């Protein structure tokens, strides 16, 4: 089920949360709404869910071509996973997952046996078999999140909406769950829209990245597109580390740390390189990060592989020559 967002605006009092936002979310895709706090991404997600309504005007939300703008959340058929899970504290895991089914009107409600079977099916899907009688406070963060997911899926929603799904988890759990979600999404193929402020997460996980800032959409594209061809300084800076150089004529130039090369000072070529002294070296990780100080006092950040670091045998205080990979002029 595709999602179409047309000209949505939302104001809270005097605060403009969204300004004329339009977006297409293709059927079956995993789309990330990425942006800093206050960019409007969560508001947009909640409007798609029906938990908020857009300002009066031309704005509308379509599910598979059907206008759902006026339909409240309960009847839109969305599955929503909240940042802090919002599990029902006093119910067991099984009761939590069954909730959506248990509140269906009599005529549509499945039998107790059918509900129980569906709960077990979902527990298997999220790899939480055997935990049906536990209560939320007896589960870890990652487990709670998966229960929240199972609960949202129980009602067979048309779209899945996740609000910073991994925001409240430890870094390691976050990475594991991230990978798990990608595999899971590929398995069930449900159109999924999620909100995050973590660009690594958005780039790693999604088919389509929507970069938002200050109530507007800055750029939409697949992860490769937005990272390699950012359309504005904001997108460039937000999606990764960046070096900002000011040229003599006043123009700004952006270069990523991994786009810079380090060579011996003896190989310095004045036409393309800059001389610099290593100020700080950080190599406890998959790549080595060097903070180098140029002659004019500015700092650059350079990323090189551990192998290169070993080959060059560098240390703090060494003089080196910095060039752009591919030998374009610095």
């Amino acid at each position, binding site marked *: 089920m595709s999602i179409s967002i047309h000209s949505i605006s939302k104001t809270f009092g005097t605060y403009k949360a969204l300004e004329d936002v339009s977006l297409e979310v293709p059927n079956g895709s995993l789309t990330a709404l990425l942006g800093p706090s206050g960019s409007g991404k969560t508001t947009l997600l909640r409007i798609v869910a029906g938990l908020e309504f857009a300002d009066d005007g031309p704005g509308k939300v379509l599910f598979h071509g059907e206008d759902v703008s006026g339909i409240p959340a309960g009847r839109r058929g969305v599955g929503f996973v909240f940042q802090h899970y919002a599990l029902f504290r006093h119910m067991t895991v099984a009761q939590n997952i069954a*909730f959506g089914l248990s509140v269906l009107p009599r005529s549509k409600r499945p039998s107790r046996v059918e509900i129980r079977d569906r709960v077990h099916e979902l527990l298997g899907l999220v790899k939480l078999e055997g935990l049906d009688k536990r209560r939320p406070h007896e589960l870890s963060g990652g487990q709670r999140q998966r229960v929240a997911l199972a609960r949202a899926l129980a009602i067979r929603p048309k779209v899945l909406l996740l609000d910073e799904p991994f925001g409240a988890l430890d870094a390691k759990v976050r990475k594991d769950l991230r990978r798990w979600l990608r595999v899971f999404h590929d398995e069930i193929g449900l159109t999924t829209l999620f909100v995050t402020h973590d660009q690594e997460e958005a780039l790693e996980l999604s088919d389509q990245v929507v970069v938002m800032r200050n109530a507007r959409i800055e750029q939409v594209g697949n992860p490769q597109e937005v990272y390699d061809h950012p359309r504005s300084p904001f997108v460039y800076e937000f999606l990764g580390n960046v070096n900002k150089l000011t040229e003599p004529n006043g123009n700004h130039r952006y270069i990523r740390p991994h786009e810079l090369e380090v060579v011996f000072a003896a190989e310095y070529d004045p036409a393309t390189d800059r001389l610099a002294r290593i100020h700080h070296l950080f190599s406890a990780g998959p790549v080595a990060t060097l903070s180098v100080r140029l002659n004019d006092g500015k700092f650059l950040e350079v990323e090189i592989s551990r192998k290169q670091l070993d080959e060059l045998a560098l240390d703090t205080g060494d003089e080196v020559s910095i060039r752009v990979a591919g030998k374009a002029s610095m």
Partner: protein
Amino acid sequence: MANLQATTESKPVRVVLILSALTVLSLFLLLPLFGVFAEALRRGWEVFFAALTEDAAFSAIKLTLIAAGVSVPLNTLFGLSAAWLVTKYRFKGRALLISLIDLPFAVSPVIAGLVWIMIFGVKGWLPPAMMAEFLAPLATLAKQAAANESCGGLFEGIAGWLADPKIVFATPGIIIATVFVTFPFVARELIPLMESQGSGQEEAAVTLGASGWRIFWRVTLPNIKWGLLYGVLLCNARAMGEFGAVSVVSGHIRGQTNTLPLHIEVLYNEYQFSAAFACATLLALLALLTLGMKSLVGRISGHSAQE
């Protein structure tokens, strides 16, 4: 060990603080409590029971139970609705509503009683004569119902009251005054509790398709049950023990408009000390019962709030 010493007071200071707290506790709480029971039983068990079963005492107990029996459910209903409204929604005038809920606490109980006399008294804004006029059509309806329906007696009683509606210096006035002074208890207990719990679970229930009533019943209520019970206990204790407002509004008609606290005052003024204290033990027992249940609730809810 070093840590412990860094954040607690030194031993002598701790001893002094604990001793002072115990002294104050004994002087202001334990001594009076002990005194009430001692005085009540001074002339023996027979006098004690006679004082409790005597007609005027019996009516007083009955009236207290009626006043509490009406005001506690009403204020529970009101408290739940107000807390739900204030914590799950944002609207203009929300802050004003929260302040108004606290109004009965800010007002002196005497004023809380006088206000009703000012409204419903003979010289008030809605005197009995005017009320009788307003209620006349209802009175005729009730009379007709009394003639036709099976519970004719009930409708007779209602018709009788509607024809000559006494509010102040009668039971309805006492009920109204009690409702007013115990207004805030349940709401004040629930509002911070529900505020701290947030609306996350309710929103989740919304997305899962539950209706408003369902959400309240299956999601909100189980989460607030201990706070609600606590609020109801406090509301009840105050409803049964209220003196000031009820005293002003009741008219002290012996055997008719005296609640238990008022009856105790009457007995004491007539120098029937043992009888007065005997009735007072009922209120003291109510206090002990309330405290006991309160700490029980506190312990159980402490167990269930583990995340």
